[in-house]
Each structure stands twice: as C-alpha cells, then as structure tokens.
C-alpha cells in the first residue's frame, strides 16, 4: 500500500537517506531496524512529509504523495508518532487526543474514535483530565500512540515507541502495537529493540548508512547470521 522508490532526503545539504526503496503491505507490521544515526527517523519523517523528498517517489495506493504537504498526507491516513513522544505537555490528555482528530477528515468521527482508542488504552482513559506533561513515560507513550490513532489512520508510523521505558512497559507497548494492527491499522515501526520488534513483525528491513541492506520476514531476519551478530548480540 506504501512504496518508496529510490528516495533521497536529509538536512540542509547533508544527504541522510540515500536512494532507499521499500514496500509496506496492507495490514502488516513492518519494522525498520538499524544502528543509531543511519537515518531511520529521517526516513519516516520523509514519509510523513516533515522532511522533503529530494529525489525519488513515494506512492500511496499507487498515487505519488511525495510532493504533498504533511497535513494532506495525514488526511490520506498516513500518521507519524514522533520520536520522544512529543506530547503537548501543558494541554490535558483529552486535549492532546482531540488534536489528533481535528483535521477535516477525522473531525466528524472524533467521539467514536475516542471511545475506540480508550477501549484499547484503558489507562489513558483514567487520565483524561491530567496534564500530559505530568504523565509517566509509559503513559506518555500510550497517549502518543492513542493520539496518532485518533484520526483513524491507514498507516501508523511509530518512531522508537519503547525508548526509555522499563522492560515490563515495553512488553505492554509491543502487545498494544500488535493489537492496533489486529484492529486493522498498518504499522510501520522503527525500533532499537530488535528482538521484540522482529517478534511481532511480518516484515523487516535493516537500514545501514541511508539505505536498506537486508530484508525479509521477521522470522527470517531473526535467523539471519548478520542480523544476529550485529543487532541481536548473539
């Protein structure tokens, strides 16, 4: 449903993503793994439109979207949950969630979406009137994912959702991501937690120096000797 064709992008004049091509299947969880600084975040920022696509094409359901501004892509259902959660700290949890569904396409269904999201994340529902800045790290991540879901996206892109969380919370977050997919949202995951993310992934791409080198199903990559050596520490 989403295809990147030889895209390049970066910052100022530094090219970070160097001719990367990959595909995302409808209803899948697809993971991009790679060490620090290889350009994973830059890649999904380019998909969301926050970074410009310098060259190459991004196709969503066959249509080119790489020239559209970010809000147009959100309206088409491509939503990113940024790295480091980035909630609006001095707004309440409820207001944060509402902001996820303010765009034209989503506004009409906002109430229904809120119920769905709270059904998935009951802990978020207990804290609707709390300021987002006062939540624990795990709660913040749950709110960030909930907020991303509020517009009813086709593709939810998550940038390191497990960053800085205790192992037990990490486990919960990964279970929730599986549940999000089970309910019909395609997930593109960027993760440092290679083991856990490969476990829940249908497909995975290894990124090195601005491009993808190895790809395969989650299971294949877990068995791949290079991946084992470089990313699983085995």
């Amino acid at each position, binding site marked *: 449903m989403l295809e990147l064709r030889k895209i390049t992008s970066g910052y100022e004049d530094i090219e970070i993503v160097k001719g990367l091509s990959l595909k995302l299947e409808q209803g899948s969880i697809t993971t991009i793994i790679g060490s620090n600084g290889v350009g994973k975040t830059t890649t999904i920022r380019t998909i*969301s*439109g*926050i970074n410009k696509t310098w060259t190459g094409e991004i196709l969503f359901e066959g249509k080119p979207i790489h020239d559209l*501004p*970010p*809000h147009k*892509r*959100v*309206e088409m259902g491509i*939503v*990113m*949950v*940024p790295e480091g959660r*980035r*909630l*609006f*700290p*001095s*707004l309440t949890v409820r*207001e944060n969630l*509402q*902001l*996820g569904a*303010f*765009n034209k396409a989503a506004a009409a269904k906002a109430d229904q979406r809120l119920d769905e999201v709270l059904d998935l994340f009951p802990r978020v529902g207990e804290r609707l009137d709390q300021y987002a800045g006062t939540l624990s790290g795990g709660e913040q991540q749950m709110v960030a994912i909930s*907020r*991303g879901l509020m*517009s009813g996206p086709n593709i939810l892109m998550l940038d390191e959702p497990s960053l800085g969380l205790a192992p037990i919370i990490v486990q919960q977050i990964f279970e929730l991501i599986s549940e999000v997919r089970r309910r019909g949202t395609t997930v593109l995951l960027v993760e440092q937690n290679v083991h856990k993310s490969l476990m829940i992934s249908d497909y995975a791409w290894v990124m090195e120096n601005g491009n993808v080198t190895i790809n395969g199903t989650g299971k294949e990559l877990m068995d791949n000797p290079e991946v084992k050596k470089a990313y699983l520490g085995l």
Partner: protein
Amino acid sequence: MYSRLKTSYIVYGVVLLVLLSLPIYAESDFIVALMPDGLSGSALLHVGILIFMFAYLSSSWNILGGFAGQLSLGHAAFFGIGAYTSSLFYVHFGLTPWIGMIGGAGLAALVGYGLGFVSYKYGLKGPFFALVTIAFAEILRLLFLYFDFTGGPLGLLIPLASEYTFWEYQFLEKEPYYYIALGLMLFGILISAIVSTSKFGYYLRAIRESEEAAEALGIHSMRNKMHAVALSAAMTALGGTFYAQYTQYIVPDDVIKIALSIEIILFAVIGGSGLVMGPVIGTFLLVPVGEMSRVIFEGGGAGASLVALINENIPAGEKFGKYMDYLSSGGGGGLAILLYGVILIVVCLVLPRGVLPAFKKLGAKMEQRNG
C-alpha cells in the same frame, strides 16, 4: 471546579462594575483625598486609559506570543501602522478614524501575513523570528522618519475637529476615551477567549508546544502561524488608532519604539502569557506600581516630575505625548523602570508561568481546604 469558576467570574464582574462607574466618582472628594498630592480625578482616568490600552495591546500580542509561542519583539510596528494609517486618511481625506482604523487593521494584517510568510517560509523560528520582528519594526520606524508624507521626524498632528462628535473620534473630555479604551480591552479579552477555546487556538498551542508533533498530526503549522501573526497585528493596529486619537499627535520615535514593544510583552509575561486573562492581570498589577513609583519618587533623572507634568496647563494630547516621553526616558529618575526590572526578575524566579496561574493554584488550594 464549578465554584472556583464562579468566584473568579464574580471578581471579574465586580471589577468591571467599578471600572464602568469610575468616571462618575473620579472627581469626588473621597477619591481626590485618596490620591497622592496634587493629582486630580482626571489623572485617575488617565491611568485607567493607560491600563486599558496596554491590557488590550498585551492581549493582542498574547495571541501570537502567548498562544502560538511566537516571540514578536516588534509589535510597535503594527501599532504604528494602525496609528499612521487612520491618521493619514484623516489628515489627507478627512476620513473618519473609525473607518480609517479598519483600513489600518487590514493593512497590518496584510503586513503580518507577509512577515509571517517570509519568516516561516525560510524556517526562521524562535529567536530568529524575534530578530526579524525587531528588524522590521526598526526599518519601519526609519522609513516613517525618512518619508515626507508621514510628517517625518516632526510627526503628524491630527487637526482638531470643528465639532466634537463621536464620528470624529475626538473628544474634549477624558470620559469618552476612557470608555473606548475599556471597550477595546473587553474586545481584546473576548477575542482571546474565543481564540483560546476554538480549534484555531488549540492548533496554536500545539504548535507552540511541539511544532513537529503538530505537523505529524496534520496541523498546517505555517498557515496557522501566519493567521496568528495577522490577527495579532490587526488587533494591535486598532490600539494604534486609539492612541493617535487620544494624543492627537504621533511621531515614529513614539509609536514605533522598541520600548513599547517590550512593555507590551512584559505585562503579558508577568501576568501569565498564553492565558486569556494573563496580560490583563499583568497590566493591572504593573501599570499602577509603575505610576505609584513615579509619583512617590518624583523628580531627579531625565523625566522630572510627573505631578508637575499632570498639572501643567497644556492640551490633554500634548500632555500624553510628554507623558510617553517621560516613560521612555525612565521617568521618576528611572526608578519605575528599575522597579519593573526587579518585579520581572522576581516573577520569573518565583512564578515562572506568571501571576495568574499562581492565583488559580491558590484558589484551588483554598477550595480544597473549604470543601
């Protein structure tokens, strides 16, 4: 929650009633007796006008600087655009300032869109945007000094109307100005309240807190920021027209000066920027403090005596102009400015989010104890 809301509404309501009726008893013996030596009830109205005008300007700034978090250090530019547009139309074409001010607001909005477009298109954010606004205001001031049609450094004298009617936006007495300024302030509060609870207001706050996250959620940050600049600019321009009509004399060094831009921000920051009532509270607290210190520590320094100035037998407009000089030259031996500085430092250290959030917290605590 409900009862606290009600209490604050009652307080605001009572204050509004007092302000509405102030002109009626400003000259009463009781009030005059309370005033520092030599000050009359009309000085009280003058301070009221000053407070309302600054509360309005500060509220206008707050939409951009507070809600959207876009630090503008050049709002005097929009103030100047408002003052000059309506005045030039009046001087050259006899157009009533009531219509001229709409032209000024429209022009300021256009300029705001332009400024926003250029800044945001080239990714100038935070301190860089602030620098653009200062530079813009300074360039505008210099242009207004340079050109002849603006009156250059001599300024623009607004000719007296042959008849004092509402339509002319000129009055002999202070009372009409007082009520117009009060109306402006209420208008500023109303617009702030509407923006703050609207979708647009939420967009602005989201952009302030994390522009990237806002964009990731589909908020068109550039467009919304530009709307904020334009709205804030247009509102500020209306304040400029009021000032021009009140003083009936404007010069670039007065209406487009950095000191004015800074003062507008100071009130908002101390009251609580990003909150509807923050700028108003800040102005009501600070202007009287500044006034008192000027009266108490009169004499000395560049500004000489305020009491002498107020009692001087010159037209109200000229007096106000002199008064602005007095402010900018650090009247009262600079003590008022020093006092502002000290208050600013203390507030930033003790109540970094401003006075209003602290009030609210206190209210909540008392309510807890009672309930």
